[in-house]
């Protein structure tokens, strides 16, 4: 489920984090997932023009690639990727009556950058 639009004044097509909630209820998994009810997975999408690559959470490499793209358009633009991720924990029951608490790394996108 996509969620709240981007903050005011931010050019919508530039690289930024898009909110996306994965609901276990929507998947019909609420019968065996005890907690949480779902989680904010989010995703990164948007353009990485040269001006964008001078921002703080863009990599030096993105700056170089954007510069090279300006000189030779055959070099692809820098891309919009997660720069900060966090884990989730899931408490669920399997078919053999075992209750399991397991965590999964890098499931939630917290920040994006070029």
């Amino acid at each position, binding site marked *: 489920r996509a969620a709240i639009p981007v903050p005011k004044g931010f050019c919508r097509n530039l690289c930024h984090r898009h909110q996306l909630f994965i609901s276990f209820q929507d*998947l*019909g*998994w609420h*019968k*065996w997932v*005890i*907690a*949480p009810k779902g989680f904010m997975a989010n995703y990164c999408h948007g353009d990485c023009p040269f001006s964008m690559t001078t921002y703080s959470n863009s990599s030096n490499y993105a700056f170089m690639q954007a510069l090279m793209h300006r000189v030779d358009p055959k070099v692809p633009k820098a891309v919009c990727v997660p720069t900060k991720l*966090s*884990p*989730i*924990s*899931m*408490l*669920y*029951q*399997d*078919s*053999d*009556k*075992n*209750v*399991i*608490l*397991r*965590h*999964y*790394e890098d499931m*939630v996108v*917290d920040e994006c950058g070029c």
Partner: protein
Amino acid sequence: AWGQTSEFQDYDFLQFLGLEKAPSPHRFQPVPRILRKIIRAREDAAASGASQDLCYVKELGVRGNLLQLLPDQGFFLNTQKPPQDGSCLQKVLYFNLSAIQEKGKLTLAQLTLDLGPRSYYHLRPELVVALSMVKDRGAWGRSHPALGRLLTQLSVPGPQGPLQFNLQGVAKDWNRNRLKNLDLYLEILVKEDRYSGVNVQRENACDRLVRSLHASLLVATLNPKRCHPSSRKR
């Protein structure tokens, strides 16, 4: 296949989560407070953006990235005979350790015995709980299995919450030779000397205890591939 709608692929997500297929439990097992406390603390930490070391379970003081609660699948012994010489309940506790999913090392094996609140108030004042390893499974048919080492014996005064036993020896055994199952022998006795009630009252109370006893084994496993050695911040 042609024309296949891009339905969300449950299967891929389940595989990714380490599950063969979506579990279909007939009814929910009671979830111990400790597991709910852990998952709530993690959700709060995630919501506040705090960094977490998910390879350390601070509520239990052990390293581990997977917690599993295994239900007891054992059976009672001598339920036909009236309790004698103070013995109130004898049970073989059986836990299927091959259900432990995570590769890696067992860092916790904690047995919880919930005797149920009501049964306590009828077995005043003291219970003695004795827990032993079962040495020879084949002897289960007899009234008393061949016992291995006594793990613990403790007097339990008056009503209190579930009893917990840290079975470190079991965790060591599992790490050494991947036991397929764990068999324990549980005996609960009523201290005769201070028991003033008539036998029939004790008998009813022991029957109640048989019905309300709930045993479970909480195990924690640490997968070195997912958890770098002592990555926990000092």
